[in-house]
């Protein structure tokens, strides 16, 4: 039940090829075969009363309100479960139908709180609205009969409550949990009148429920409702915006009462989520108004000093004075900036422009450096563009999917639900992951193959898969001949066919049994539409870029590119990883992935920006740290990223940050990085931002402000003021002007504007004259670079190896309820699910090391040591331990190393040789305060 009544056609669309003509209440309508009478009626403009039906769920036929009469047929069939037939004539209104509907409503209301006793009409209960519409005035049964009105509310979930007294047992919640979310946590218990909705007999919080909110969304009464709704009451306005958590980019309607956000309701019109959500986007937005928000600029001379609250003017003046002083002492290249994948395209564009045009160098990088920079590199090399090839809906057509180094049910839950739906329909799944992620076996989903490789051996595995394809005659020769370079294919084919790439040869390194790998390879190559989905388990390795190219090679060789159901698809970690890369945040590229040395491109920017630009690449983030320690890089502006917690080898990072003469942090909170900052500039939360995010499927979504910036300034305004004070005037009336400039200088964005977005909802780039409505699927008729380019992908093992001193391999990931460094989610009730990071360890290793479940362990690598609690589980194989990095207290990155991808310097988070021992009593528990290297 939502404030905005999205049109609900009652039952899902049927993609029928043939169409059927029917007449509903005298209105003729043509619909695809298989469409329900209810949907046909809705399309004809006839609203049939319904409670159990909604167009996001399969027809169920339980409420019996939607009964209709069909000419020539006996009885009163339910319109939701009755498919149209050619020439059918349907009446949705008659005295008999009215009487039946009143009868049903009378039964419902005989076991429902009366208006006087709490169930508020216009309070989110469709039941009362419908009672009025069917003309029911009197409940002749009275209210003294058997009922559920003394049942108690289950308020165990921090975000929503279940009140059985208003429940009508329509099963929409159960079906939403089954069909949309795919968790199957809910059921109906008892039979007959005793039927009640149940989370498997447990309170919601103790059940399998993942708190995605699908049940709350589906509930037609107030039985399942947000606690904020109960607390604040009915919202009075709605703003359509985009979630700021992961790279799925769900569309939400923010519902407000005055300036108070009452709830975030996923939008059915959202291209990425189609009405679904997860616990983070749906519920964990309270951080935006958390008391920890810093809303006043602050400065200090040394990071050891106390902060001083100052005006914006003073903060910007302080910043610019220092930046200028550094540049005059150490040259123009001695300062730089880092953009954030958490910010809008417009904010990112302005910061990189500030660096290039006002700082006068290319020392700009983005936090995507540490996550998906290999994606940018690898896909550009092979396909010609640095982006995933598909839209999310493509997976609905996949026959087999490979999930490599991604954990979608935790990291990208809304897309995972879509994957699971397709898997339940019969698509097959291959999981390549050292850890047994939930997708390997989850209700009604089981992977055909789980290739449980050792961390760091991705390339060996992908090469072996390709080897099977090439040597067993599974190459799609027609596709390769027509779409790919003959020369590079021939070289690659010869390379990959070498015996050292065979499954039998790579088995020793990867630990993947050759027979299983061969079977998986055959499945991928022969099952029809095969799609690859991957995450940071691919990129965050010494061979991250090689692996991305290896997957691209594989997809091209099997012809799995350029249509629905196939492709190579990065699952982006943050809301705007794609966008921040698109916007020219990398030190070597302008927006649209064009190298700074390209004279024509640079001249375009110089003309538009009215200043000369540097033609050589600038520093990457790790280079910045090294340069800082070397004393040649001294001033850094960081937009919304907590590199002290998120970047590897904390000791090294902290040393580099501490060595800076000026560190400017713009953020919502005083994060770990701000401990070393000289200037703190308050940022804006997504509820205050005005701009766009670009999700993992290249979909540009509008982010609309539901409130003004709490401190009065948009982030792009701050960057503009710094640039202007540096002597390069930058000014925009509003964010839409920034997008206009992006469109002006970026061919793939040429057709994008706020007006266009407001009109069509969202656009997937490229969007230009050739594709005015955007491009859901790329490389359809040809690759962006022309012919697909095969790259040989030798497997070069990382230097980071387990040894006697550090015998285990640590790999890292994330968990559903927490997000990244936890700056947001730790400031919400999501901590109830995950209040600390734990170390997963295999029972055999635990026994050998004397580690008991739930006890503190010390985790050490060659670069640092931290403590956390152990969780003994066979999810991880022997020899591998796993943790998350959401909490600064445990500081997983204290132990990760400086090793990185050979091509992009994306850190090797996923492989660290470690030692684990039970923590002794004297060990400071969980003290992971970054080491002060100056002492």
């Amino acid at each position, binding site marked *: 039940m939502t404030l905005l009544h999205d049109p609900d056609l009652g039952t899902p669309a049927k993609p029928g090829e043939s169409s059927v003509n029917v007449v509903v209440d005298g209105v003729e309508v043509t619909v695809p075969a298989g469409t329900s009478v209810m949907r046909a009626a809705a399309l004809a403009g006839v609203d049939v009363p319904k409670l159990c039906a909604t167009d996001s769920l399969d027809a169920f036929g339980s409420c019996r309100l939607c009964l209709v009469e069909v000419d020539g047929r006996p009885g009163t069939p339910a319109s939701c479960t009755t498919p149209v037939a050619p020439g059918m004539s349907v009446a949705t209104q008659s005295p008999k139908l009215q009487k039946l509907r009143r009868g049903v409503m009378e039964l419902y209301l005989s076991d429902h709180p009366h208006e006087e006793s709490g169930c508020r009409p216009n309070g989110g209960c469709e039941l009362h609205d419908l009672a009025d519409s069917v003309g029911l005035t009197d409940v002749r049964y009275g209210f003294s009969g058997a009922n559920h009105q003394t049942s108690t509310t289950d308020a165990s979930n921090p975000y929503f409550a279940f009140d059985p007294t208003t429940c009508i047992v329509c099963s929409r919640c159960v079906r939403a949990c089954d069909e949309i979310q795919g968790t199957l946590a809910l059921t109906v218990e008892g039979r007959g009148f005793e039927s009640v909705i149940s989370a498997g007999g447990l309170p919601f919080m103790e059940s399998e429920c993942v708190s995605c909110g699908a049940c709350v969304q589906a509930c037609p009464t107030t039985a399942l409702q947000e606690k904020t709704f109960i607390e604040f009451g009915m919202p009075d306005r709605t703003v359509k915006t985009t979630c700021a958590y992961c790279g799925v980019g769900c569309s939400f309607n923010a519902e407000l009462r005055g300036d108070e956000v009452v709830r975030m309701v996923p939008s059915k019109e959202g291209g990425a989520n189609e009405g679904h959500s997860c616990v983070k986007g749906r519920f964990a937005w309270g951080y935006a108004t958390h008391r920890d928000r810093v809303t006043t600029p602050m400065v200090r001379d040394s990071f050891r000093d106390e902060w001083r609250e100052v005006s914006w003017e003073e903060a910007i003046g302080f910043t610019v004075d220092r930046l200028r002083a550094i540049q005059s002492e150490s040259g123009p290249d001695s300062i730089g900036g880092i953009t954030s994948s958490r910010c809008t395209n417009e904010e990112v564009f302005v910061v990189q422009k500030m660096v290039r045009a006002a700082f006068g160098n290319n020392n700009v990088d983005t936090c995507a450096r540490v996550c998906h920079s290999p994606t940018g590199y690898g896909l550009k090399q092979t396909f010609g563009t640095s982006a995933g090839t598909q839209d999310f809906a493509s997976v609905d057509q996949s026959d087999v999917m490979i999930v490599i180094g991604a954990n979608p049910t935790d990291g990208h839950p809304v897309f995972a639900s879509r994957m699971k739906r397709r898997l339940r329909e019969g698509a097959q799944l291959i999981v390549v992951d050292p850890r047994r992620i939930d997708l390997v076996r989850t209700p009604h989903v089981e992977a055909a193959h789980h290739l449980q490789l050792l961390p760091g051996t991705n390339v060996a595995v992908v090469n072996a898969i390709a080897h099977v394809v090439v040597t067993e005659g599974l190459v799609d020769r027609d596709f390769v001949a027509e779409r790919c370079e003959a020369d590079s294919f021939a070289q690659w084919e010869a390379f990959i066919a070498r015996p050292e790439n065979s499954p039998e040869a790579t088995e020793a390194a990867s630990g993947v049994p050759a027979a299983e790998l061969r079977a998986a390879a055959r499945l991928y190559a022969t099952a029809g539409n095969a799609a690859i989905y991957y995450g940071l388990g691919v990129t965050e390795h*010494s061979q991250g870029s090689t692996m991305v190219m290896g997957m691209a090679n594989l997809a091209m060789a099997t012809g799995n590119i350029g249509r629905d159901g196939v492709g190579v698809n990065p699952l982006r970690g943050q809301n705007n990883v794609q966008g921040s890369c698109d916007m020219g945040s990398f*030190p070597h590229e302008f927006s649209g992935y064009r190298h700074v040395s390209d004279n024509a491109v640079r001249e375009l920017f110089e003309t538009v920006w009215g200043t000369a630009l540097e033609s050589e690449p600038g520093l990457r983030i790790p280079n910045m740290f*090294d*340069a800082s320690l070397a004393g040649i890089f001294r001033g850094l502006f960081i937009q919304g990223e907590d590199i002290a917690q998120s970047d590897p080898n904390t000791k090294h990072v902290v040393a580099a940050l501490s060595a800076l003469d000026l560190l400017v942090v713009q953020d919502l909170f005083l994060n770990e990085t701000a401990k070393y900052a000289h200037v703190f500039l308050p940022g804006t939360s997504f509820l205050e931002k005005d701009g766009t995010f670009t999700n993992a499927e290249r979909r540009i979504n509008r982010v609309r402000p539901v409130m003004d910036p709490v401190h009065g300034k948009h982030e792009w305004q701050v960057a503009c003021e710094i640039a202007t004070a540096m002597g390069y005037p930058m000014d925009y009336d509003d964010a839409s002007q920034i997008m206009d400039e992006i469109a002006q200088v970026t061919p793939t964005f040429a057709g994008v504007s706020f007006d266009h977005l407001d009109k069509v909802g969202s656009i997937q780039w490229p969007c230009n004259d050739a594709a005015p409505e955007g491009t859901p699927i790329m490389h359809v008729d040809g690759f962006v670079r022309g012919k697909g380019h095969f790259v*040989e992908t030798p497997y070069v093992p990382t230097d980071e190896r387990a040894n006697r001193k550090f015998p285990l391999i640590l790999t890292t990931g994330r968990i559903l309820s927490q997000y990244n460094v936890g700056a947001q989610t730790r400031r919400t009730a999501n901590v109830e699910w995950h209040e600390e990071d734990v170390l997963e360890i295999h029972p055999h290793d635990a026994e050998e090391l004397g580690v008991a479940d739930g006890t503190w362990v010390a985790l050490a690598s060659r670069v640092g040591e931290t403590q956390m609690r152990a969780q003994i589980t066979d999810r991880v194989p022997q020899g591998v331990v796993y943790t998350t990095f959401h909490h600064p207290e445990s500081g997983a990155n204290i132990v990760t190393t400086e090793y990185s991808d050979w091509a992009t310097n994306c850190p090797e988070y996923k492989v660290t040789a470690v030692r684990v021992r039970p923590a002794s009593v004297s060990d400071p528990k969980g003290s992971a305060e970054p080491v002060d290297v100056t002492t």
Partner: protein
Amino acid sequence: MTLDALVRMANQIAANQVHLPPDEAASRVADHVRLFWTPGMRQELVDHADAGADDLDPVVTEALEQVRTTIPAP
């Protein structure tokens, strides 16, 4: 700049061209360094090689001959 980091990065790039003949590998390394390294980083490594470094992959050493020509005059 931290020299060990530059040496490690350059050697790693070279190691990933292991499938190529040395001269082709050197060209690839040179291209990569030209596209992604700042002139200062390139200069530092060239200076290191010129000083008789013994910690560089021969492919890197060869590549640096091409890299040398890409560094703009300060």
